[in-house]
């Protein structure tokens, strides 16, 4: 009951190479799927029909000529709309950047083009990646394919929804406090935040520079590995990119968990975690143990302060990162008699409420007299968080927890309660603070039929072990549910 657009990247690659179908046909299937699902979910802000078709034609031509660019050759993928694409509108879901066409490709984008990937379009997000529900988009929310009255999570909700419904075979998002993993969990797909620095941030519209990381969203752990490998590795344009060898991401996918030491984070299984999420997580842990993993409980005491620290650090960095949107060189301008007035009006009109809130928060946290009490102290919490992780990884290979404290929540439920919204990231933020990699793998549905995500965390550059455990979780869970699509027509698309 599935079409070409539901294929795994590996299966699609086989089909492209054995002549079962072309990249143009694969793209057409994806675009047909989007034509139907978009009305319900609004995963995309822009679908680049012409550009994608050209890329697909080129991919087909190259394959016919014997030029094979690898796993992503001819594969239709989607990009979060905070990744700069040359000549293709890039808005970060903000009014500020309506109509903005970057004059350059970000490094990840350039690498994807070089790998022969077909960029279908740009997906919706919380404005400037600030949010956990994709409701804070100037262009309207994305809806969760599993229940369109709920959010898909955020901020990479568009990418997660597109992958979930097959309007892309894979996608990329960015994760600052959980923005890949949490929407992946809420949308029933796999999401990976790599080690900080593993993927270049050049061309990613910055939210919080010391936390941001590009990563894949996919329908399987194997696909996620392929997508990550295509963009990972040192980049001269990003001073913070990792200069060593890329971990052997997909090497151990089949190795299983026998003998692997797994730590369960006590603080992330405690109160605040929804019962069904906790029990689903607990069940998976027991199955991992049954499969030979050595499971222990591990306490990360600083976790209790991670959320607070994050909501000082991220806004502080964003207050500077978003200062460049001033109506001078690009983006929205609202006129004023003086430049100062023009800037104030442009920024007031261009930024939505959540972005405004965080800029104000960060400005305050950095301002004279408050720096030490807020920002300075938050940076120390970060140190403690790292120390907790370092200590834990002396005894275990990976840590596990729920990805999100709840499954998908109703649209509008938390929009007026910033603190409740911020709590959605309680399980994901610690790894952003430490810089360590983490991933979310869907394991089951709750009684409302909404997906539950399972988080696997690893020490820095421990992607190989993380993917190995993630793949084992995937096999054990055998999660093959898909969101019901709107009509039979869709199913055959």
């Amino acid at each position, binding site marked *: 009951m599935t079409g070409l657009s539901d294929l795994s990247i590996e299966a699609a690659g086989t089909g492209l190479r054995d002549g079962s179908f072309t990249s143009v046909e694969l793209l057409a299937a994806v675009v047909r799927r989007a034509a139907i699902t978009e009305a319900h979910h609004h995963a995309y802000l822009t679908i680049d029909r012409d550009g994608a078709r050209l890329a697909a034609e080129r991919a087909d031509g190259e394959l016919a000529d014997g030029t094979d660019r690898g796993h992503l050759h001819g594969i239709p993928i989607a990009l979060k709309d905070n990744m700069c694409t040359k000549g293709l509108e890039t808005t970060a879901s903000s009014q500020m950047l309506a109509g903005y066409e970057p004059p350059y490709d970000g490094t990840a984008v350039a690498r994807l083009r070089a790998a022969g990937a077909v960029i279908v379009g740009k997906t919706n997000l919380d404005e400037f990646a600030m949010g956990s529900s994709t409701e804070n988009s100037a262009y309207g929310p994305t809806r969760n394919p599993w229940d369109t009255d709920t959010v898909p999570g955020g901020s990479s909700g568009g990418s997660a929804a597109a992958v979930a419904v097959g309007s892309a075979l894979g996608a990329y998002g960015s994760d600052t406090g959980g923005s890949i993993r949490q929407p992946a969990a809420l949308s029933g797909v796999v999401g990976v935040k790599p080690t900080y620095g593993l993927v270049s941030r050049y061309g990613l519209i910055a939210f919080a520079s010391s936390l941001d990381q590009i990563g894949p969203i996919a329908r399987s752990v194997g696909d996620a590995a392929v997508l990550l490998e295509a963009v990972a590795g040192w980049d001269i344009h990003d001073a*913070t990119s990792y200069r060593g060898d890329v971990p052997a991401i997909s090497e151990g996918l089949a190795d299983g968990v026998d003998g692997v030491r797994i730590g369960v984070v006590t603080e992330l299984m405690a109160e605040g975690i929804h019962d069904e999420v906790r029990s689903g997580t607990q069940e998976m842990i027991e199955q991992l143990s049954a499969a030979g993993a050595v499971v222990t409980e591990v306490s990360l005491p600083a976790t209790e302060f991670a959320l607070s620290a994050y909501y000082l650090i991220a806004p502080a960095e964003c207050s500077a990162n978003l200062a460049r949107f001033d109506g*001078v060189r690009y983006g929205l301008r609202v006129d004023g008699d003086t430049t100062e007035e023009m800037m104030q009006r442009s920024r007031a009109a261009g930024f939505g409420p959540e972005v405004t809130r965080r800029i*104000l928060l960060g400005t*305050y946290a950095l301002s004279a007299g408050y720096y030490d009490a807020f920002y300075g*102290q938050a940076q120390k919490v970060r*140190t*403690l968080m790292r120390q907790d992780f370092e200590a834990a990884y002396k005894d275990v290979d990976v840590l596990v927890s729920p990805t999100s404290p709840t499954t998908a929540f109703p649209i509008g439920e938390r929009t007026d309660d910033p603190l409740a919204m911020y709590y959605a990231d309680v399980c994901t933020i610690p790894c952003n603070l430490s810089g360590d990699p983490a991933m979310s793998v869907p394991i089951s549905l709750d009684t409302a039929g909404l997906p539950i995500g399972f988080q696997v965390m690893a020490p*820095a550059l421990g992607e190989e072990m993380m993917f190995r455990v993630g793949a084992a979780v995937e096999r054990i869970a055998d999660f093959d549910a898909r969101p019901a699509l709107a009509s039979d027509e869709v199913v055959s698309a």
Partner: protein
Amino acid sequence: MPVEIDIAKVAKLARIALTDEEQETYGRQLADILEHAARVQALATDGVKPTSHPLTMVNAFRPDEVTGSLPRDEVLAMAPDAVDGYFRVPKILDEQ
């Protein structure tokens, strides 16, 4: 611990024009968030060094090479207001 915020001053520093009503709303929300965030102050951090960055690497440099610039028409195509090859802005009150 209640947090004092001069929201008008913060908004001015951030160059965002706020209505009185918005000042009131954001002021309240910021106070709530900061009251929560102030929990970090309870943590004993004597002798703890701040971490501003997850990496322990140092010295990422580029060689001193000219690698090219953007064509000016592309640069100015983005501009809200441009004239004679320049970006144009209204008059400036304050001089840096």
